[in-house]
């Protein structure tokens, strides 16, 4: 049930861009309560994520993405994000966010160590080890 792109949809600049730096566009409607009005610009097309943004997300997620995979990913991610945009129809004024499904208060516990002392078990699945340590490529020159 993808939502058709509404005329007058506005581009909300991410708050991290408040310093006036260039950043990629987020195409979302109804974000007025969340972003200072000064950052709205004119309507943008359905492609919210550009090539550079997909590359940046992949870097943040530490997933290697080859250059020729990006157009397809861009298309898929924009399809999903476009469909998700229908959430902007919902009036969320005054609604407290729900962080979880637990019908009870989260429990407290003593801040004490209750487990451990078996390095062999912990290291049993290590792809590489050196003695009682996990081994990785050299980090510091």
């Amino acid at each position, binding site marked *: 049930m993808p939502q058709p792109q509404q005329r007058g949809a506005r581009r909300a600049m*991410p708050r991290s861009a408040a310093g006036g730096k260039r950043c990629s566009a987020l195409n979302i409607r109804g974000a007025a309560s969340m*972003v200072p009005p000064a950052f709205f610009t004119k309507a943008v097309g359905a492609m919210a994520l550009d090539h550079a943004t997909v590359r940046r997300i992949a870097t943040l997620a*530490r*997933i290697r993405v080859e250059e020729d995979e990006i157009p397809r990913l861009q298309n898929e991610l924009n399809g999903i994000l476009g469909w998700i945009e*229908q959430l902007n129809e919902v009036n969320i004024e005054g609604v407290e966010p729900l962080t*979880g499904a637990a019908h009870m208060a989260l429990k407290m516990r003593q801040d004490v160590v209750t487990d451990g002392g078996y390095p062999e078990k*912990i290291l049993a699945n290590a792809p590489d080890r050196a003695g009682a340590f996990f081994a*990785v490529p050299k980090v510091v020159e």
Partner: protein
Amino acid sequence: MSLTDLTIAQARTGLRAREFSAEALTLAHLHAIEALNPRLNAYITVNHAQAVDQARAADAALARGEARVLTGIPLAIKDLFCTEGVRTTAGSNILRPFVPPYESTVTANLLRDGAIFLGKTNMDEFAMGSSNMTSAFGPVENPWKRRQDTEAVLVPGGSSGGSAAAVAARLAMGGTGTDTGGSIRQPASFCGIVGMKPTYGRCSRWGVVAFASSLDHPGPFARTVEDCALLLGSMAGHDPKDSTSANIPVPDFAAACGRGVKGLRIGVPREYRMDGMPAEIETVWQQGLAWLREAGAETVDVSLPHTKYALPAYYIIAPAEASSNLARYDGVRFGLRSDGEDLRDLYERTRAAGFGAEVRRRILIGTYVLSAGYYDAYYLRAQKVRALILKDFTDAFAHVDALLTPTAPSAAFAQGEKMDDPVQMYLNDLFTVTADLAGVPAISVPGGLDANVLPIGLQVIGKPFDEVTVFAVGAALERAVGFDAVPTLRAAA
């Protein structure tokens, strides 16, 4: 009747009366797996030797008169539950070599109660999927066949497709699954069996490979409502190792199955319809409501106005949590490693090689919606919509005791269908995802067959921690439906 056709309740009686041994029961299932699993691919790993050892121990316990609730009952365990010393893959290449040094709480509870583990079942990678097509270990074939097109290979649903197919094909008496957006109930519906997602907090998540922690619900599969109740009674219970585990008593779920529905008010949510939904689903739903009225319930129209927003909210919240949970797969401490020039290159190559396309897609979506500047517009908004979805249920449950809906907007589809557009696949979970977001219990029970003689499930949704009413309504429905159809591919067929 073949041993593999027995229900868990019947097998319990037979084992106690020494009509057959746990070893014979287990071997009957292992032989069925040998015969059918090469085709169905329901199990990733079969524990032949361990299962036989467990069965002999069960026979010894039975001989001593020390049988517990599931002593000698052979089960299928979704490969998302960590099992000590038995490889646990989550359907992913990144965990292909992983052998857990510990047992999940839910499987430890089942072992405590005498259950036998036949093996670990196939699933969508990291439980992300509705067809089992995203598994790194190949797709699962649904044992049901279309009457008009017997050549078509249908999906068992997902993500717990292996457990559902195994139980339907009599390759296990029951099984475990996990439900994050519908991953127990939708495969139960597609495979013509019963699947139960309890209240969030009822079953511990400790030792279950995490997908979206605020949405992951372990639960049982079986061929009857009573069998599901027996399994859930063993799986459930407070666990200090899971901070969201509920410290409240576990009622006798099985006893609730005989309770009936006289005097209960059953809500009929008007939003549980979709454009293009087959007419047979509406017919099965109306028939189910008529049967509940005949059994003494009153049916009441209700509205859950935010239903259509549940799936888009889920596709922010679940990927956001997944991107965080799956950050642990870095090629350093366990699982796959792809060597790189430096540590960062090692991370990136490992994760590119280890995660399949759907998992990568969801990690990227999750990373994006949590990234600086977008958090409020996506994640916070989705959490507010989630609050409204819970409020829809709370408001409805002020007037009714339970809800009856279809489980899924279609019967099982063929492998390869709905693969071109991720959103088309996501729509499978339209009717199940609401109960995950709200954390309320829900069961899928076979409601009838479509024109292709494929099963269609009906879903009963209940109030938080009121599984007993869900089981009571589910069992009443089961008695009225009298579902006795069996899949084409099954043991002893």
